[in-house]
């Protein structure tokens, strides 16, 4: 079995491959050089997994490429895979997230975009249509842009219930649908928006990433623009789980794929101080759903470290003993094959890492 780590960067997509159970990695040449790869998706439902890459060329705009041979070759349709309808008055800037639906919905793939919108494909991610229920939401004129733009960056279809979909956007916060995307309601109670006159609004939060617990689809974890939270009721209510972390700011939130209660994050000192706390490259892990946190440092740089980890630049793989991976804005990529206990360098000196996704073949 081979492990593959897809590394989306500011200047192309790199694939790292390991044939020795993640002890060593071989880094390939960049695909789509000089394009920003904000999202990589993997649909493992077909007999041969399908990869998706969000490819944004600073001159020639956004697109989506597909690979059905694990990244050896990529194809891109003549027509725009995603586009806003003429009456939307908007143009796609980039795709921020791909999410395959559950096994009961073969062919259904969601994409979260900038500007903030959700698209849905029913043919395996070849063509997508705008989900009008979210686009036409009366709150939309009040959704704002975070520092990275205005985007739906988190899409979480409930694999056990096709009617339930959760998205998160910056800014706007968390929204849920319980009718397959037809209608949407905000789900931000308890998440603070310190940058607004009313710091506890119904919506308008700058949620950076949401992850679902491995054992309970109703248990969610959120890294907010200051604030780390957990919900035990599918987003109805959120409570802080920031105690024990060196900072409540950051971008990533990754749930262990099979161990309930285990999550990983990479704190950043503050909104106005976007360096790792104390300039230390440290992953923080909780094994009790955010009740306590421990710093993971074995194998990570001990020198002062200044780059941060962006919202999709950390992930787990699906091995029995899950691998954990993250990439930084300095182009360093680290991996752990023992669930964060120890780390090694997979790649260095790449362009800014925007996203990582792992899979095995």
């Amino acid at each position, binding site marked *: 079995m081979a492990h593959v780590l897809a590394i989306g960067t500011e200047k192309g997509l790199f694939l790292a491959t390991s044939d020795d159970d993640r002890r060593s990695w071989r880094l390939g040449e960049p695909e789509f050089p000089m394009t*920003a790869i904000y999202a990589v998706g993997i649909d493992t439902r077909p007999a041969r997994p399908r990869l998706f890459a969000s490819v944004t060329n*600073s001159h*020639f705009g956004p697109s989506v490429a597909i690979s059905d041979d694990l990244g050896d070759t990529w194809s*891109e349709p003549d*027509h725009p895979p995603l586009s806003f309808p*003429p009456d939307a008055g908007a143009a*796609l800037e980039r795709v921020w997230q791909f999410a395959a639906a559950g096994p009961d919905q073969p062919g259904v793939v969601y994409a979260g975009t900038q500007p903030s919108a959700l698209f849905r494909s029913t043919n395996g991610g070849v063509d997508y249509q705008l989900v009008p229920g979210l686009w036409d939401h009366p709150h939309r004129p009040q959704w704002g842009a975070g520092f990275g733009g205005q985007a739906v960056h988190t899409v979480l279809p409930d694999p056990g219930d096709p009617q339930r979909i959760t998205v998160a956007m910056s800014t706007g916060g968390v929204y849920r649908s319980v009718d397959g995307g037809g209608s949407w309601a905000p789900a931000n109670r308890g998440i603070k928006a310190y940058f607004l006159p009313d710091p506890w609004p119904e919506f308008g939060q700058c949620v950076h990433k949401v992850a679902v617990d491995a054992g309970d689809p109703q248990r969610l974890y959120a890294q907010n623009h200051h604030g780390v939270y957990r919900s035990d009721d599918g987003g109805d209510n959120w409570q802080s789980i920031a105690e024990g972390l060196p900072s409540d700011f950051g971008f990533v939130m990754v749930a262990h794929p099979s161990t309930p209660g285990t999550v990983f994050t990479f704190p950043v000192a503050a909104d106005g101080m976007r360096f790792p706390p104390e300039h230390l490259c440290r992953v923080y892990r909780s094994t009790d759903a955010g009740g306590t946190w421990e710093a993971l440092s074995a194998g990570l740089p001990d020198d002062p470290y200044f780059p941060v980890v962006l919202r999709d630049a950390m992930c787990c793989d699906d091995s029995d003993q899950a691998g954990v991976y993250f990439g930084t804005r300095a182009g360093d990529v680290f991996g752990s094959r023992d669930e964060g206990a120890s780390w090694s360098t997979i790649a260095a000196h790449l362009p800014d890492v925007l996203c990582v996704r792992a899979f095995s073949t």
Partner: protein
Amino acid sequence: MSVTVLIPGALRADCGGASRLQVDPAADPEAAVDLEVVLDELGRSWPRLHRRIRDEQGSLRRFVNVYVDGEDCRAIGGLAARVRGGSEIQILPSVAGGAGPAGPGAPGRKPGWH
């Protein structure tokens, strides 16, 4: 009417490797049409090339420059610039584009800042 469209190297893979394309946007050889009509006609033959140049609402991408007989189209009416038979249209990526498109409300901002 027939016009010649010059394709930059970065986009030739989207039009079969051609460096120049002939486009016939009107039957009358003496006609003049808006640049938009020429690009629409180009898009009918080469849709992927077309979407590199314009977004789905039809706007010219910010860091793509189009010259009509040597003049920047943005200075002569944009997509309404008049094009005559025999004209030469040159598509060129802006040198500014390498820095990435600016985000909303933040001209010149580097993309991907978080």
